[in-house]
């Protein structure tokens, strides 16, 4: 069994949780079966002393499934 890890950065104007969720939703369009996400880094873009964007770097893990020729 092999698992694969991809690096993602989720961006949200709302919250850290939303940034994670958006990254996973986009990854889910092309990658099936992500079962684990590890947050590596959190940063924020600041304008006028306010957080404009949360940026969350994370590693998402999924199981590599082989497709057998029928």
């Amino acid at each position, binding site marked *: 069994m092999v698992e694969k890890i991809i690096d993602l950065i989720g961006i949200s*104007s709302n919250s850290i949780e*939303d940034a994670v969720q958006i990254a996973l939703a986009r990854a889910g369009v092309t990658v099936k079966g992500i079962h684990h996400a590890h947050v590596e880094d959190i940063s924020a873009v600041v304008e006028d002393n306010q957080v404009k964007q949360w940026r969350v770097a994370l590693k998402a893990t999924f199981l590599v499934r082989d497709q057998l020729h029928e």
Partner: protein
Amino acid sequence: MPAKIAEVHPGIYEIFLPLPMRPTIINVYLVDCHGAWALIDTGMNTPDSVATLEDAFSQVGIRLEDLTVLFGTHHHVDHFGASSTIKRRSPQVTALLHQLETERINRMLSLGGPISERPEAMEFFRTNGFPIEKHPPEAMRPMWFGTDMYSPLDRPDRYLNDGDVVPVGDRQFEIVWTPGHAPGHCVIYLRKEKVMIVGDHLLPKITPHVGLYPSAPTGNPLGDFINSQMKVQRFDVELVLPAHGGVFHDHRHRANQLIEHHRYREAEMLDLVRRRPKCAFEVASQVFGDEERPIAHVMAATFETLAHLELARIEGRARRIDRDGVALYQAV
């Protein structure tokens, strides 16, 4: 122009027709029904496209005049734009289209004048925050609008309905109504061959545009589109024949990808309207826009964004606030 064709299944020919815009090619399909011939979609009504279609017919040994049945998947210019030319050349052909598409055709053909003289259209742009003062809608009309490049039949010989089985020669064409990209969009299923001709419903590389428009401002086209993606998965298909891009095999995989894509887009849009409500134009500019992007694309993006926000509103994930004549959406 010599036509490029490919026999993608015994007796089913994919014909590549040129378009004067992006995407630059549309695939139409000619089906040998052994004693009869069926064509699915027509291409645009340009001399180049019609000549290419004729050349493709000659490569399989027939003429336009030999056609028996013409199916239109939907009313768009690249799909049904040359239908009146084909009917004129082949008066015996039975042309088939969904009734809702015929209504759209008649609406499109009646919209000849400037948009600025259509109060309901101007109202639509203003309500959704689109800066029509800065970008006059006239300047963003597609190049084919109001020209004979779009010459659809304003009335088919018969309407297509969901579940119809249309016999042509020795083949059976099953009609699956798939609203979303257009309200009367249909895909055509050949059950025995396990082939599905999908029009713009399932494209392998690009996502079909789904929107609300000045001429059709209400409804839930994105909800319809997602339901239609689930609907086609009930069919047993081995070969998918799209109108743009290459033929492919796994229709369920692609349908699920398209559903996931729209879920992601909605999450992205709702994130932008969680703290403060915004109009469709502002959301579209942030999700799709950049300074390089032509304003016509941002307009199309606004139509698609609106379809997303309306789906979220209908399903209780967003609410609409009318403020000074502008519709603002906020996540709930």
